[in-house]
């Protein structure tokens, strides 16, 4: 199969997802949850059947009408408000109890605005440092162009994930940063296995054309690439459907990112590496001329 020759098609396919994602990021941005934006969250379970409308009406009596209310099964509601003091939260709970009957607080969170800011900065820092370390490691073990190609594939996966989260306005919480960095690790891992094979095949056969070597290398590692992603997807699907609410966003990000990572390691990383090599060659020829 000719993975490299048709690379323009693969690039186009990636851009079809990434470009709308970038537009969405520029226009509507990400839907930041309270971890980043600051605010309070209370998850309650009512004893009686209640409606979202009812909860909203109860909240509007204490001027919390603008809160986000999210209903899930068994009369469980997640209410997100602006930043509240503990006394304000107590007041809210008492009001809900008075209007809607008995309830139990399953979970509550408060995140001040400074925390969100720090989290964003730490996340970005982590990403940048991880990228630098990656480039250094791959350059030492392989070569600089492999490192650049791997990082391109990596940014591809991050942009796909962040873009889809922005397009669908899925809420982003602190676990999202962990998800992005995990995608980072997996994506690089996938790419490295293929690069490792290219490196090996290049040592073995110096005369064969580069595109053939790359195509062969991808083909030889294809079963591994697919099987590994499958096993990880088994775990992720189990976590997504059985693992409960709290890890859902995290798992969803991983599902998107790891699928993208499997794609990019095959259809982005190696083709980009070939392009990078060709670019260098052309310059070399021009310089000679």
């Amino acid at each position: 199969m000719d993975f490299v020759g048709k690379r323009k098609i693969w690039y186009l396919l990636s851009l079809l997802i990434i470009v709308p994602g970038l537009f969405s990021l520029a226009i509507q941005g990400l839907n930041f949850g309270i971890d980043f934006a600051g605010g309070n969250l209370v998850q309650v379970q009512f004893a009686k059947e209640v409606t979202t409308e009812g909860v909203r009406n109860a909240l509007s009596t204490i001027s919390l009408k603008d809160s986000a209310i999210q209903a899930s099964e068994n009369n469980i509601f997640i209410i997100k408000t602006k930043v509240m003091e503990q006394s304000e939260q107590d007041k809210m709970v008492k009001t809900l109890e008075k209007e809607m009957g008995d309830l139990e607080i399953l979970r509550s969170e408060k995140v001040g605005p400074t925390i969100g800011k720090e989290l964003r900065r730490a996340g970005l820092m982590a990403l940048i440092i991880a990228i630098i370390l990656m480039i250094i490691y791959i350059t030492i073990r392989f070569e600089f162009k492999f490192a650049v190609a791997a990082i391109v594939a990596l940014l591809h996966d991050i942009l796909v994930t962040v873009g889809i989260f922005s397009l669908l306005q899925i809420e982003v919480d602190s676990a999202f940063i962990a998800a992005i960095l995990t995608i980072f690790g997996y994506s690089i891992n996938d790419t490295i296995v293929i690069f490792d094979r290219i490196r090996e095949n290049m040592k073995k056969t110096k005369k064969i054309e580069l595109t053939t070597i790359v195509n062969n290398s991808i083909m030889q590692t294809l079963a591994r690439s697919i099987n590994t992603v499958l096993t990880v997807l088994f775990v992720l699907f189990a976590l997504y459907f059985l693992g409960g609410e709290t890890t859902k966003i995290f798992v969803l990000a991983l599902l998107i990112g790891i699928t993208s990572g499997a794609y990019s390691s095959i259809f982005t990383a190696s083709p980009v590496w070939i392009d990078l090599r060709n670019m260098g060659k052309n310059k070399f020829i021009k310089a000679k001329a």
Partner: protein
Amino acid sequence: MRWEKLILVLITVVIVAGLTFLALEPFQKNVKLGLDLKGGVLVRLEAPENATDEDMDKAIAIIDNRVNGLGVTEPEIRREGNNRILVELPGVENPEEAVSVIGKTALLEFKRVDTLETVITGKDLKDAKEGMNPNEPDPNKVNFVGLELNSEGAKKFAEVTRELIEKYSNDDDPNRAIAIFLDNQLISAPLVQSVISNGQASISGGFSTLEEAHNLAVLLRSGALPVELEIIEKRTVGPKLGQDSLVKSKDAAIYGIAAILVFMLIYYRLPGLVASFSLVLYSLIVWSILIWMKATITLPGIAGFLLSVGMAVDANIIIYERLKEELKNGKSLRAAIDAGFSRAFWTIFDANVTTLIAAAVLIYFGTSSIRGFALTLSIGILASMFTAITFTRFILRQLALSNITRNTKLYGA
């Protein structure tokens, strides 16, 4: 057929299975569950920038006292940076109430109503205890907090009560009242009936349960915070949700791992079976390390473990794909196994080091829950490299040497 090799394999498998079985109970007993699985409270408090070291130390000591008053068994209170304090209370029964108690400044003030002059503060207290007065006709005043003033406080209190009675001769003159404030909020303003010289006073009104009175008594006993602390982050998980998350993540783990094992068996056959056993050993190693490190297991931590199972399988997959290739190239089974492992080693090494780099960065930069995830992931990756290149290799070699079957189809070829 060489039986001794086969028996060696069987013995190894039985030992691993036996150890795992034996480890189950001690693991379950010793595992330290995080707030999200056990229920509990995390509160991060911030003092003003100008808070001194002394202020912070004192504040931590006071919070420690308050937390002990709540009866939490394993509280963790520590300073973060210059002016932050992190409080973690796993397994606390009523998380919301705990938050109210931790964050309060608890500045108690007795003020004269006529001059608004502060007579007594929390510093004049010797002791505070909750109490109940069943004969009290006003249901709002049944529960109270009895205060015992120290000698200086008692003297001041006696002077002021005498002065009030002398100045306002009428028994129900509102000017006779003494207003009791907590953190600048009026709790009650009882009228002084007589001179109080024994240093006993009480606060009643506003406690609907004895527990509320108890909590205030705890606050007053431990004293007011030297600086105002703002709650900048709070996470509480009720015990019910924690239990629910634990059950759900166990289910996810069982089905996820089961799916992997079935897949490995069907796709890779005999080596797939070996991989399944190596996954059991792998899990045993990872959990032994986590429990030995006294690591707190959180929801993200479990997710990290499950993902690392995926990584562990990956190491096996890389090896088996190599093995298949070598068999296709016409190598004998034994030679194919040796070549497969040695070729696969550096692939696994390079691929895993890059993932470890990402995990290390997460450990360094992450919040505590992200750290838990990255830690289990890193331990998992290291353990998976170890089991894949020692255990899996050992078993496969012995199987090949035992000549149990020459059918390379069973090895996935």
